[in-house]
């Protein structure tokens, strides 16, 4: 496998006594699109900031393109794009001026591409940033991160304020960006449906750790809801490995498990003599079940 875009080993971050992130180890391969999910305050923003070296870790290491995040060279900085949660635009400038200022820092800036996107996304280059609506500001923040065609794109809730059409346009752009198979995208979002479309890997942050890090496809195949029918006492007494939650009503029970394999279905049927149906869950439901 070619060198990972981002690599972390036993990464941890504490603010005073509060341990926000604990013992995270992960790798981001080129071409990965990673969706980061977590409750508010779970540490998504902190994780993204640690990754790019905005804040030093209190434990472990993290590196981007093989270089420690805290010591990123200018060359590597030009390969990274970041969209922060709160926009950092300069209100006094016009959209075009803001773009030109940021563009001037990068050796390769695709002006035509950005001009085209401004047109498609409805961002007026002559407008004063002070007069833009929240959605337009967010679009501009995204454009500022796209212009230098970064190989690693990190986005922190990039579409929270965009309407569905704008979100779709943004997703299409991400699809285009990931076509070459070389660019990696890491984005955190509450809009689970967007992540479901685009991500191939999912990280779920819970209790300062990665409760899940793996393929989205595997996640959907592993976390399922079993509909079990059998005698009430049998159901009550059943012990199922990897069980997340269960709900029983008479002789009918639903159980959500986190490590399902097809063999499990046959096993349960055989061992307890019950009827087992498997229901696959969407990402939002999986998230809710993992947090129960």
């Amino acid at each position: 496998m070619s060198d990972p875009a981002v690599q972390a080993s036993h990464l941890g971050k504490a603010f005073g006594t509060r341990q926000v992130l604990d013992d995270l180890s992960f790798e981001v391969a080129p071409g990965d699109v990673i969706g980061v999910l977590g409750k508010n305050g779970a540490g998504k923003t902190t994780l993204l900031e640690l990754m790019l070296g905005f804040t030093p870790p209190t434990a472990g290491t993290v590196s981007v393109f093989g270089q420690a995040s805290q010591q990123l060279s200018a060359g590597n900085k030009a390969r990274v794009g970041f969209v922060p949660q709160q926009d950092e635009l300069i209100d006094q400038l016009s959209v075009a001026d803001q773009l030109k200022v940021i563009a001037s820092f990068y050796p390769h800036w695709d002006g035509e591409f950005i001009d085209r996107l401004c047109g498609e996304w409805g961002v007026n280059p002559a407008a004063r940033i002070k007069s833009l609506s929240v959605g337009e500001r967010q679009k501009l923040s995204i454009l500022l991160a796209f212009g230098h065609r970064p190989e690693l794109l990190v986005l922190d809730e990039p579409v929270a304020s965009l309407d569905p059409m704008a979100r779709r346009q943004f997703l299409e752009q991400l699809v285009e960006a990931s076509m070459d198979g070389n660019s990696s995208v890491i984005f955190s979002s509450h809009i689970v449906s967007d992540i479901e479309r685009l991500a191939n890997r999912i990280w779920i942050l819970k209790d300062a750790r990665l409760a899940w890090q793996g393929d989205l496809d595997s996640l959907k195949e592993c976390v399922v809801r079993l509909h079990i029918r059998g005698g009430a006492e049998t159901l009550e007494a059943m012990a199922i490995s990897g069980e997340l939650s269960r709900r029983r009503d008479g002789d009918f029970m639903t159980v959500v498990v986190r490590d399902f394999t097809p063999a499990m279905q046959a096993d349960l049927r055989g061992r307890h003599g019950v009827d087992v149906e498997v229901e696959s869950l969407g990402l939002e439901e999986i998230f809710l079940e993992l947090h129960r």
Partner: protein
Amino acid sequence: MFILNPQSGIPIYRQLLEQVRRMVASGQLAPGAELPSVRELALKHAVNPMTVSKAYSLLEAEGLLERNRGRPMTVASRVRNTSQLSRRIEQIQPLVEQTVLAAKQLELSETELVKTVRKNWEDEDE
């Protein structure tokens, strides 16, 4: 051409797999027919292109699709017959399971269900 539901519990690549298989088996996609390119499909449905690639690669490995240099994937001209039957049975399996489940819930016996199926089959032939 395809209906993809990203919010479903079934992974997107699998949805695509099943739909292509069904369409080839039913003849909707004739041998030699061109499938949309990865880029086209990914953009149209706003999904990760790797998902589409994965489905296409698996279908190619099954022998259902053929890769052509510089052109989009096409349905294989010679579909291997031996694997066809089990694949087709696999296709209909979920529907059969649903029907059996419904029949049990309605407290129909197996014989009654088979009789209904036979009747339907004969009606269709007419």
